[in-house]
């Protein structure tokens, strides 16, 4: 069994940490902690971009790291906090306790999903020094865990955060597989995220003004 090089090891370790943060979001009851974890996960994407930029001498990626950091570590969490605008020390109604499964069962179920994603992506057989197979497979696992997060939590805020972290998983995959992607395309991905923030923002506002709660379990009443 061969030992990975330092770059590959760092990429894999960052990917594994991001996956753990994804599980952290799944596990957290409070929406403000979920937002913090999302910001930390986004910061790791920027760190990975800097590592890849330094390793492969790609100055574009420094700009991407800065842009991604500004948007996902600062702007999106800020917007989310303002949207969910509960006073400090209080929790937005409808978020805590929105589990459909107990936290331990949710984690076990998502371990299953992560295994599925991990081995699906792993079986793609993309092996090269530039694309560490484990980091790519971990990104696949993250995609499935993000879906899992959106399924097991019945509140708009967690579902929005699940969707945004899905974008983080895709960013991770694209950084690992195609680090030399033109900056313009990478920036276009970030604008997708902005669009998602606006759409989710409107949804959260609309739902909150109608139901005075962020829980989606109330939505069953809208059936005709």
């Amino acid at each position: 069994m061969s030992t990975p090089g330092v770059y590959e090891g760092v990429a894999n370790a960052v990917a594994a940490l991001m996956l753990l943060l994804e599980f952290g979001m799944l596990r957290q009851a409070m929406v403000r902690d979920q937002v913090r974890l999302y910001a930390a996960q986004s910061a790791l994407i920027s760190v990975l971009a800097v590592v890849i930029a330094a390793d492969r001498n790609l100055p574009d990626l420094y700009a991407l790291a800065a842009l991604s950091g500004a948007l996902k570590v600062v702007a999106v969490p800020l917007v989310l906090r303002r949207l969910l605008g509960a006073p400090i020390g209080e929790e937005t109604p409808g978020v805590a306790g929105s589990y459909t499964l107990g936290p331990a069962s949710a984690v076990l179920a998502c371990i299953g999903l992560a295994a599925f994603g991990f081995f699906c992506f792993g079986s793609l057989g993309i092996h090269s020094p530039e694309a560490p197979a484990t980091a790519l497979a971990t990104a696949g696992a993250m995609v499935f865990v993000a879906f899992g997060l959106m399924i097991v939590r019945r509140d708009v805020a967690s579902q929005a955060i699940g969707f945004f972290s899905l974008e983080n998983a895709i960013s991770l995959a694209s950084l690992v597989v195609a680090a030399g992607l033109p900056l313009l395309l990478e920036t276009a991905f970030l604008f997708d995220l902005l669009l998602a923030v606006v759409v989710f923002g409107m949804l959260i506002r609309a739902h909150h003004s109608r139901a005075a709660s962020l829980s989606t379990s109330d939505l069953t009443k809208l059936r005709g």
Partner: protein
Amino acid sequence: VSAAVPIPVIQVLQVLTIALGAPWVTGVIARVEARLQGRRGPRVLQPYYDLAKLLRKESLAPQGASWFFLAAPVVAVAAYLTIPLLIPVLTTYGLPLGYMGDILGGGFLLSLASFVVATAALETGSPYAQLGSSRAKTFSAITEPVVLFVVFTVALLTGTDLPYALAATVRSSAGQVIRPAHLLASAALFMVILHETGRIPVETHTGTNEFGMIEEARSFEHSGPYLALLRWGSELKQLILFTILANVFVVPWGLASTQRLGAALLAIAALLAKAVAVGCVVAVIDNSFAKLRLFKITEYVSAAFLLAVLGVFTLYLGGR
């Protein structure tokens, strides 16, 4: 200091270091913990005085308890003193008796010690002691899969499950240290150690409050020298777990690579320093987090299980 020490003497030194160092490490951690809570705290040598006091006292056994009640503390301490023969306490090279058991062998000995103490507690008929042993066995059943997955990770990383081999693999390159499988397995083991030493998530390791007592409750009916052995046993267990974490997983440096006496003495100092460092981290964590409700323990263990399972996953793609 530069004289070569015979291998059997080094082997004995390994056991003596753990046996005599364990109360000191416990004393230092208790002192640090007291300082964190704004108290002056007991003397560092207090655990030795406590053991000496208990050894001088008479021992009583509940009516109806059999010989097993008295034999259990002795068996437990014997099991704990066998484990230092199997793990790299002082040396980087394997000692002759180091190969008589692997990591699973060490795990079996830890379980045996825990089992005999729990069974002895059941024999007493005391509800507190029985509650403690029932809880201890229930929760150790759910932490066991985590330990197994950590062992699988070690086996996949090194091709063997000998602790000496993993320590040598970690020392071999920087790439090994930052390998996700290694980091995840180490983190999972650390979480298990926090649980096993009665710190997180539900126990208070020094408390006499019923809700927080699991380990402490089991020795409720023992007294005198037998209680001393049980106390010493839990101190030994703590230092053994810290040694496995430090010398096998996290910082397997500072061990003696030759048979010189100086190298062995340095290794003893390094081990005690590492154990105290781990203990300080544990004390800070213990004092920074609120305890969970008893049945929330599954959430904590599921997090440790997640780390260990991901560790195994990451090894499956071409060993990367």
